[in-house]
């Protein structure tokens, strides 16, 4: 298939006519090629599912800037969808991928995002089996948005719901926290990112390897929007148990700390796009940590929190600070706005 991408997106590229056809066959198919997609039928007819419970998720991606250090909107859209399935205990299989493009969007940007999508799909071992393209008039959108759905299967016997969380469980972070959020905020505010880059990556390989090591993961979440603050507060609420973080054990890169100091942001509120938080039984803590660290995507994993007691009238999530005090950790309210000084 010949690969051709227009210089600029025209409204006609979303018309369903000749230009749309050229965009699909010239840009999308060469990158995302697989037999199911190539049939270009109205619906993807999938093989029978492997045994287990099907898991279905959907997500929208509107990141600004759409190309950032360590990834792009396309790459992110596949990772985000795959990771939502993987942290639910599912093995991701197929994704759908719809683009909403703004009239006048740069063809090179679209190419980069399509290539990112293909790369992430290959890394995660999934297929993009259906797609759609719409073009909205200039000013009605911001260059490129993506919407996905993802289908996977939770193998028989696997359960990672929050109700399995027990008193004494430890919480493992698969790597340094906040890299993605800090990268985006730094580039949005013109700080330059230096060697800082997004952690964006598919996590299904890492997570499968930990299951294969025989670890009984009680629950898992990927701390995307709202970061660790949101995940921990939601988990505490759903499980009815308190979560206590140890500040000195939280893995954070110095560059991320610096971005947060300059912009006045809360580190634990930053989004991660290639990290998983896993609740594991205390007696498996060391083995679980070793299993994470054995995989390239988990080599900097760390135990940073524990589950202790029920909420009752207590603050659900607290942090023992490095100076020996304790403070509550609440979700962010609204967007985390940079401080004045």
């Amino acid at each position: 298939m010949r690969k051709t991408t227009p210089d600029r997106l025209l409204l006609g590229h979303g018309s369903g006519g000749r230009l749309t056809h050229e965009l699909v066959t010239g840009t999308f198919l060469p990158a995302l090629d697989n037999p199911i997609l190539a049939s270009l039928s109205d619906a993807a007819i999938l093989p029978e599912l492997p045994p287990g419970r099907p898991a279905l998720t959907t997500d929208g991606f509107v990141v600004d800037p759409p190309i950032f250090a360590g990834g792009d909107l396309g790459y992110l859209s596949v990772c985000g969808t795959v990771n939502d399935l993987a942290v639910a205990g599912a093995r991701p299989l197929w994704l759908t991928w719809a683009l909403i493009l703004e009239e006048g969007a740069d063809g090179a940007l679209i190419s980069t995002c399509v290539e990112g999508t293909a790369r992430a799909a290959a890394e995660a071992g999934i297929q993009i089996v259906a797609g759609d393209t719409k073009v909205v008039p200039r000013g009605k959108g911001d260059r490129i948005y993506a919407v996905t759905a993802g289908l996977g299967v939770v193998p028989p016997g696997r359960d990672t719901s929050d109700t399995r969380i027990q008193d004494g469980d430890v919480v493992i972070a698969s790597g340094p926290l906040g890299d993605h959020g800090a990268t985006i905020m730094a580039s949005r505010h013109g700080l330059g990112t230096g060697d800082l880059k997004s952690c964006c990556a598919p996590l299904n390989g890492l997570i499968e390897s930990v299951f294969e090591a025989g670890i009984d993961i009680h629950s898992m979440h990927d701390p995307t929007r709202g970061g660790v603050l949101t995940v921990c507060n939601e988990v505490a609420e759903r499980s009815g148990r308190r979560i206590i973080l140890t500040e000195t054990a939280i893995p954070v890169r110095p560059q991320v700390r610096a971005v947060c100091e300059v912009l006045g942001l809360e580190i634990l509120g930053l989004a991660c796009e290639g990290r998983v938080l896993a609740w594991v039984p205390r007696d498996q803590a060391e083995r679980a940590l070793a299993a994470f660290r054995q995989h390239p995507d988990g080599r900097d994993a760390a135990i940073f929190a524990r589950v202790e007691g029920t909420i009752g009238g207590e603050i659900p999530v607290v942090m023992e600070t490095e100076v020996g005090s304790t403070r509550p950790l609440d979700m962010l309210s609204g967007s985390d706005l940079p401080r004045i000084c």
Partner: protein
Amino acid sequence: MSEAPELRNPRAIAALIREIRGVSETIGRKITLMEVCGTHTHAVAAAGLRQMLPPGVRLISGPGCPVCVTPVDYLDRALALAALDTTTVCTFGDLMRVPSSRSSLERAHAEGQPIEIVYSPRDALQVARDNPDRRVVFLAVGFETTAPTIAAALAEAEADKAENFLILPGNKVMPPPMRALVEDQELKVDGFLLPGHVSVLTGWECFRFLAEDYSVPGAVVGFAPADVMRGVANLLHQVEKGNAEIANLYSRVVSPHGNQVAAKIVERFFEPVATNWRGFGEIPGSGLGLRPEFAHRDASLIEVELPPPHEPVGCACGDVLRGVIDPPECALFGTACQPATPVGACMVSSEGTCAAWYRHERLTGTTT
């Protein structure tokens, strides 16, 4: 960028706490210390320092959060400007959620008003350059720390003849409200933790009047936990000995006279004016107004219709800002007034006293 690790060392902090406990016992009465810098408010709360102090030491927050002291009529004016034809308002992010008399910038933005969040005044100038057919008004708030960058943007606009770049002057300076605080009969402050960032610009000598005219000691401190605790210990020692001087404990960046280059550019554009502080009312010489020769850049001279200023009912921000009460003593704190739905300005910025208490100190607060 990052601080020396010894400033966050738990053992060093523990030693300072022991020292503080000892002096506090020797003094034998309750001592009230005030910090007057939003970043201190945030740092104290984020490290949970208040709960580590002995009961004989009360650490309170003063009017150090620029968002919190910005009066409601300033926001009313900003909103009225955004409603004018061909006018865009640019603002620092944390003003967005501050309630005005009838709305907020965030709400007006959602309703389609041309309001843009910028990270620096220069970004606002860029908006003006990119939109030559629009008048771009930057909401100039903050203390001595933001004034130089605002002046620099004005200088650039002057040099470039970017005639469509204006500011709504709202900058404030720190020493005058501190004089008001030490003269406040209702409030007895035994010592001040002086603002580290402001002092980098102004130098520490401008705070000498506290010691010389009012016999109240002060300590200029940085923002790491050990910085703050060293300041507390220093002030307690001064109180114990009956001393009153300004100690510069942040000498790694603060000099006696500050940054003269910054002072010069601020002076070129601004002059001291009386201005309104939420909770204090008007304080002479506490604001920075544009000099008359730059009237063409002064958006406060544009005629707009303003609603009668309306402070939220039951909000005790004023008393919080003056250190008369702690946030949990306000009836709205944590109930009607929360970071997601702030009633008063102190609940908006993470530097705001109420927001910092809500986010970091409810373990020890009375509302949990």
